[in-house]
């Protein structure tokens, strides 16, 4: 039952999973980070209150977050085809992953930034900092340890989502688990993929926590 082609398959699956996860996380942060910052700054208590924008952002985030990923995965297929030209494989999976992860990341970023003591923000305003300077020089640097922990959580969550994409032929370890473990009852393959997924999650989580701890100057 086991041969070198299986090993090659597993190795390829692992790389695909890492590729999907990291690329999606990165792209999702490109969208989610500014969204999270805007959620904080446009709040009625924020540094630049913008009621309408804040409400729109909150609604968009809440709606996207309440759609189960599996449904989203299928629902955005036309968009996926438009962007990547295909609907199967790891690159195609990145589209729904980014759509699902960005609002989640926005919330993580929002809560990290809200942890920054308002006194520090007020102090920077008293020194004549512009809203952009407050964001780039105070909010984000001061929230850095918390943002890194958030990034570790986001990455592992996206990894979990990426495995789900196996259902629609999304590639990666999840795909292997479904094709071999589920459709062909090859328990061995199932166990191997699950163990690998667990290990990768552990790795991301641990590395994230270590970096966050090292960056934290508060104690």
């Amino acid at each position, binding site marked *: 039952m086991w041969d070198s082609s299986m090993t090659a398959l597993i190795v390829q699956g692992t790389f695909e999973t890492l590729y999907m996860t990291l690329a999606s996380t990165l792209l999702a942060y490109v969208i989610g980070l500014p969204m999270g910052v805007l959620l904080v700054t446009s709040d009625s208590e924020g540094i630049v209150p913008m009621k309408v924008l804040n409400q729109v952002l909150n609604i968009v985030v809440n709606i996207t977050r309440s759609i189960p990923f599996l449904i989203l995965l299928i629902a955005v297929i036309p968009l996926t085809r438009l962007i990547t030209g295909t609907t199967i494989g790891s690159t195609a999976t990145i589209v729904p992953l980014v759509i699902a992860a960005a609002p989640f990341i926005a919330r993580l970023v929002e809560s990290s930034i809200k942890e920054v*003591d308002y006194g*520090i923000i*007020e102090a*920077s305003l008293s*020194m*004549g*900092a512009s809203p952009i300077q407050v964001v780039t020089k105070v909010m984000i640097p*001061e929230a850095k340890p918390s943002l890194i922990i958030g990034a570790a959580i986001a990455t592992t969550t996206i990894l979990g989502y990426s495995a789900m994409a196996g259902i629609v032929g999304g590639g990666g370890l999840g795909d292997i688990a479904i094709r071999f473990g589920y459709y062909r009852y090859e328990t061995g393959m199932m166990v191997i993929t699950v163990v690998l997924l667990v290990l990768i999650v552990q790795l991301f989580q641990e590395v994230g926590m270590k970096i966050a701890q090292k960056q934290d*100057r508060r104690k």
Partner: protein
Amino acid sequence: MSGAGKSTLVRCINLLEKPTSGSVFIDGQDISKITEKELRTVRYSVGMIFQQFNLLMQRTAEKNILFPLEIAGVDKETAQKRTAELLELVGLPDKAKAYPSQLSGGQKQRIAIARALANNPKILLCDEATSALDPSTTNAILKLLKEINLKLGITIVIITHEMSVVEQICSHVAIIDKSQIAEDGDVEDIFRNPKTDIAKKMIFSEGDQGPVIMGKNTYRIVFDERSSSDSVMAKMILETKCLVNILHADMKNIDGFTFGQMVIQLPEDELSAARAINYLRSHQITVEEVGSHVG
């Protein structure tokens, strides 16, 4: 008194809090009518320090002082030089690379002061700057502020609930009660002769519980720097043969001038009481009868 509006008032000076009505003038400029961008430039010249220091926790002491210079767009070399100067001024050149979490409260406030002075402000606002510090650290910080005031000629606005802070370093005082300025003027005048109830309460209750005033014929007498040097009380007692009961005495040194106040009880006998009062008044000493306002 807490909730009186002290912090709100100081936040109105640099418009961290927008006044619902009225204007704020700095150097003749109405800053409540200028644009956000212009306001930011004005804020470069108004430093501020806080009770909780509000240092950037992820930056070293040195980088905290650099922060306002970065914001104002000062070039790197000048900023570095200025930072070194300021660390020297606040007496912490060896703490340049320390993070705020590694500093004591007094050291944090020194860094905060250095940071507030970075852009050479004309005004320094202090919002309860010593309230989180122990008495000896408070004294050291007040000394530093006084030094800055004298050496750099920066106007310092101090918000505090501690009258001892006012006494130690202020020249003018405004007492705020229930969002209203109850009384304002020279520190010496107010301490010597507080007119409003709130001012009396604050000045009397400083330190201990204040004098317990019972019975009639109780007077408060105030010495200024001239009369406190000669023993006028003793002379008065000897000359008028009036038996004086001293209920409370307090001598203070304000801004280089000694002044003090005493609460005395004079005999029931109206004649000798009047003699004593006349003697004191003839020596230019303020005498006023006190009711039972101190509880």
